[in-house]
């Protein structure tokens, strides 16, 4: 994988490395934010088990993920989720061909839990260690859900930590067309949700409020970054805050739902416009959205509508693969295995890893 070239490690693994025509079983682990997850994949896209233990309720009262609390919980949940993933897959440690973990981006304390666990499995069983980029995982979640997806394709991947527009010739590599220059889209949702007192996580909270609001009530400006495919959301965030402060100073009552709907519409419009611009320039067969924000129904609706005139279908992963999970990490790991893209035991967590 182009963006994750760790080099081939000089180690004599227990067994001969397998080729594409043999069955390959990978244990994948993920703990980059507030889900502790483990899965066993067969040949990449066949998911034998996918166990996710969410801590979201634990962090709700703080209005966001508290890194130290998350790290403590990951350590507690580590063995139970691994056990369950192996049991549901009907697999034992000795059957594994490789072990994978997310190594970034994310919260360093959390990342280190499953990364250390994966390194230990690699050492103990003498099987390759594969370090996976979490963002790539979100993209490959689509290929698990839709194995028939046609290439080349454009992918918009959006979450609390990133906003990237990518071009895929095939599943082995990608080209980055644009990314956010400041806040990620999901980060904007979280910040505005907290500002409005709508709670955490911000995406679903805003989306819920927006359902009862008028999306054209307030017009918020969309960032204009000229010819580039980049995104920007910090100006929008400031515009919303200024609007609320001004209205409050004038003693006007604010309709939270209208505000949420108008804000959401501005985010969705920015994302969709850049995506459509890319679709027009690159001749693609499919369009994919991924990441936590891809769960937003309004975003899916707007993009699907605008793709109609290009006769293109929009793919997105099913809800259970939209949130953080380990099956998607295992899917990426399989392609890295085929490329012999293995990591040394000295692999560090990279909290701000990019695609």
């Amino acid at each position, binding site marked *: 994988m182009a963006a994750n070239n760790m080099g081939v490690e000089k180690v004599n693994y227990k067994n001969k490395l397998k080729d594409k025509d043999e069955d390959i079983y990978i244990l994948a682990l993920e703990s980059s934010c507030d889900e502790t997850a483990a899965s066993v994949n067969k040949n990449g896209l066949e998911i034998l088990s996918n166990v996710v233990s969410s801590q979201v309720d634990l962090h709700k009262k703080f209005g966001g993920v508290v890194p130290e609390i998350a790290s403590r919980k990951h350590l507690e949940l580590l063995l139970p989720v691994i056990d369950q993933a192996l049991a549901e897959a009907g697999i034992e440690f000795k059957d594994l061909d490789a072990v994978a973990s997310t190594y970034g981006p994310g919260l360093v304390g959390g990342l280190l839990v499953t990364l*250390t666990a994966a390194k230990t499995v690699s050492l103990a069983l003498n099987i390759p260690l594969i370090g996976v980029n979490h963002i790539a995982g979100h993209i490959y979640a689509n290929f698990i859900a839709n194995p028939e997806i046609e290439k080349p394709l454009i992918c918009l991947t959006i979450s609390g930590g990133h906003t990237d527009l990518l071009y895929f010739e095939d599943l082995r590599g990608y080209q980055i067309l644009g990314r956010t220059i400041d806040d990620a889209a999901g980060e904007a949702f979280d910040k505005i949700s907290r500002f409005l007192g709508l709670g955490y996580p911000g995406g679903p909270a805003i989306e819920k409020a927006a359902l009862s609001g008028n999306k054209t009530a307030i017009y918020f400006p969309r960032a204009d970054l000229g010819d580039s495919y980049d995104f920007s959301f910090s100006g929008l965030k400031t515009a919303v805050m200024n609007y609320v402060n001004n209205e409050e100073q004038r003693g006007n009552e604010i309709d939270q739902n209208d505000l949420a709907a108008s804000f959401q519409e501005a985010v969705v419009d920015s994302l969709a416009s850049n995506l459509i611009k890319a679709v027009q320039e690159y001749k693609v067969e499919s369009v994919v959205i991924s990441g936590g924000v891809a769960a937003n129904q309004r975003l899916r609706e707007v993009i699907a509508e605008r793709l109609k005139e290009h006769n293109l279908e929009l793919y997105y992963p099913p809800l259970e693969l939209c949130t953080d999970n380990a099956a998607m990490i295992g899917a990426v790991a399989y392609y890295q295995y085929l490329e012999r893209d293995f990591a040394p035991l000295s692999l560090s967590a990279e909290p701000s890893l990019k695609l």
Partner: protein
Amino acid sequence: MLILGIDTSTDILGLALMDSGQLKGEYNLSLKRQHSEKLLPLIEEIFELLGVEAGDLDGIAVAVGPGSFTGLRIGITTAKVLGRIFSIPVKGISTLEIMAAGAEGEYILPLLDARRKRVYYSFYQRNGNKDNNFLKEVKKAASAGISELPQILNEYQNQEISIIGEKTAEVRELLVENNFKTRIFEAEKNLPRAAVLARLGGDYICSGQADDIYQLKPAYLKIPQAEINWQQKYGSK
């Protein structure tokens, strides 16, 4: 019985292999914040140097702090996973106990710097009984201001107290001013040594005192700051 000792609780990365009371090898490396990058490569290296395989292990001893939370989770995760894969016992041992067990004397005060003129401490009495080699924890691990220590230890003023670990010079000076009898140790003894951890782990495991790997966690001694802030604002629960 082959025991691997793993200590990532402080700046020192400690690794030791103890085979039925015989030390096969030991690392005590002052690596500061490199435990994540260095731990597994060093385990691989010590195995290779000593001709051991992970599957040969009969038990794991791991330091559970007090110490750096992130560091502790690295060592404990490694111990849990090795314990799980090979179905071998794992024993978590206080970093303070490791230091105390490596020191001489009847009354031992191990210390770790908790910053801002505070220390993590516990207070041990060495058991004279030959059949029971373990230290008795007279005062449980806690944090305290350095200036509070004479008061905390006042009933032991007539005993000689062995001070080991961090902040020893400062604490010794204060205790001597308060008419305590103390002793301190040379540099090579003044740290949690991996060999002591592995030996203690072996002793505990042999006496049937292994931990449940599913419950094993660091001795945090402090709830997360976000929780403290929340409780101050809203009360507990």
